[in-house]
């Protein structure tokens, strides 16, 4: 299971990197979003996917699955959600004000 998860994470990172390297701002934002999904899955996989029963007291398991990665991911998802929302709004505003979403044209001129 860990192996197929690792491959999936690799695929997500590839797609994310490809999208970030394109010129359209919207695609770049989607790329960052996909990469952060890859990172979340990586945290889950790195903690070990299933090494015992659910981490609940009163259950009759002797080994428990590590629940910390899930807490970390939950926090990371919330932060990522806020940042992506802000980034999308800002890029829309940039598009409206500057009239372009092409990164080449957002480079800026030396004299201004």
């Amino acid at each position: 299971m860990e192996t197929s998860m690792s491959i999936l994470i690799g695929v997500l990172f590839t797609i994310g990197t490809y999208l970030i390297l394109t010129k359209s701002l919207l695609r770049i934002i989607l790329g960052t979003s996909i990469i952060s999904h890859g990172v979340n899955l990586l945290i889950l996989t790195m903690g070990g996917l299933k090494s015992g029963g659910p981490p609940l007291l009163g259950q009759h398991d002797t080994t428990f699955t590590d629940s910390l990665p899930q807490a970390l991911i939950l926090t990371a998802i919330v932060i990522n959600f806020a940042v992506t929302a802000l980034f999308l709004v800002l890029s829309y505003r940039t598009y409206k004000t500057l009239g372009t979403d092409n990164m080449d044209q957002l480079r800026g001129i030396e004299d201004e």
Partner: protein
Amino acid sequence: MNNTVILPMIIPVIAGLIMVIFRNNIRFQRLLSIFAILAVGAVSLLLMNQIRNEGIQTLQAGGWAAPFGITIVADMFSAILLLTTSIVSLFCLIFAFSSIGREREEHYFYPMFLFLISGVCGSFLTGDLFNLFVCFEVMLISSYVLISLGGTKLQLRESTKYILINVISSSLFLLAIAYLYAITGTLNLAHLSLRVAEAGQDGLMTTVAFLFLIVFSMKAALFLFFWLPGSYSAPPTAVAAIFAALLTKVGIYAIFRLFTLVFYHEQETTHFVIGILGAITMVLGAMGAVAYQDIKKILTYNVIVGVGFIISGLASFTSMGMMGSIYYLIHDILIKALIFLLGGMIIHLAGTSKLKDISGLIRNHPYLGWMFFVAALSLAGIPPLSGFLGKVFITRGTFEEGYYWLGAIGLITSLMVLYSIMKIFMNSFWGETYLSREMEKGTTNVSTMLPIGCLTVMTIALGLGSEGIHEYVQIATESMMNPILYIEAVMGGEPIR
């Protein structure tokens, strides 16, 4: 257990949240933000004295013991940085009162400013790697808002790139955390230090250390500084000053913390690479500062030189170098805020940042001119001003360790810094006076001159009275060079492995 440790983190948050309710009452927001920052300053003074008398202060949130709960730690290094942060943010805030504009004030400038301070303080205080990530994000999200607030074309264009860079580096940060968790099974810094020391820092661990170095280098503008000159010249002066003073320093703090507490076993690899990165950063930054003829560009490149120099002290990893780094870090936070405020003031008066269009300001603004002169000397590390002591200690540290090239590059680049900053002074203050008082684009007033004056006095006082803080810096150096002090304070001497 000491509950005061968490106060610098939550006072600004609570004050900021209250301000959001009273959106249109600007006077109340100003008062509350000053009060909140003064409170942070008072608490950090209190903490400094507690740490001096009783050792490193910790708080285990909710009473959960160290590796399981959330740990907040204040050692002397953090406390000194907290105090400096509160001083600088107070002056930048006062500067903002008259310069930031009604429009921005009504759109949550003060709450965002306080959230930024809270994120910075949190990063200095946290004893847990994941909480460091969270505090970084609190700081960064507020900085995203501050850099784009106002929505001019330049700001929108630069903030897009700034956010993109930081989002990617945050992803890398999480990636590094995930790898480290897989190897060690903990994220508590003290516990990490124990586990890494126990298992030995093998190749895998060193690779993860380098991943962390890349992440923090991106935030601290160490070598990976390509984003900085653009981003820091976009926002208004008060915001640019607080960014230049604090944001890169948080990255530097994180590098110091990780590479003195956790990854200190393979110094010939990690610290050597850090030294090389520092040297390249200094050279490239100084070249940028010398090459440009634009006030904003020269100042932003000076931020980069400072980062490289502070990092050189860590690369030497001697007590002398560390002590120098702490002195220089305090100096650099103060002086970068001061020089950005002064530069912003010149641009405000002249209406342009091009050096060739500015001349002879000293006729109408003698105080501004002389304060700029003092700040310029202090930036280059001329005695008896505050930059001198740190520069001496860092240089001695690098020489002691045999990194002569690193110390030499540090000294040569200081000369280039002096040249670049004198270029601004001579071009804008000397020469024929183009602009009469009436033709100037802006004016000086108490609210803008007071913070500049106070910071100038502080840089002189810190230079002359460095004996006064020596004891504290000494303690900070000791606790950084002996990770066991930090570990014992956090783990409480319990045999948890």
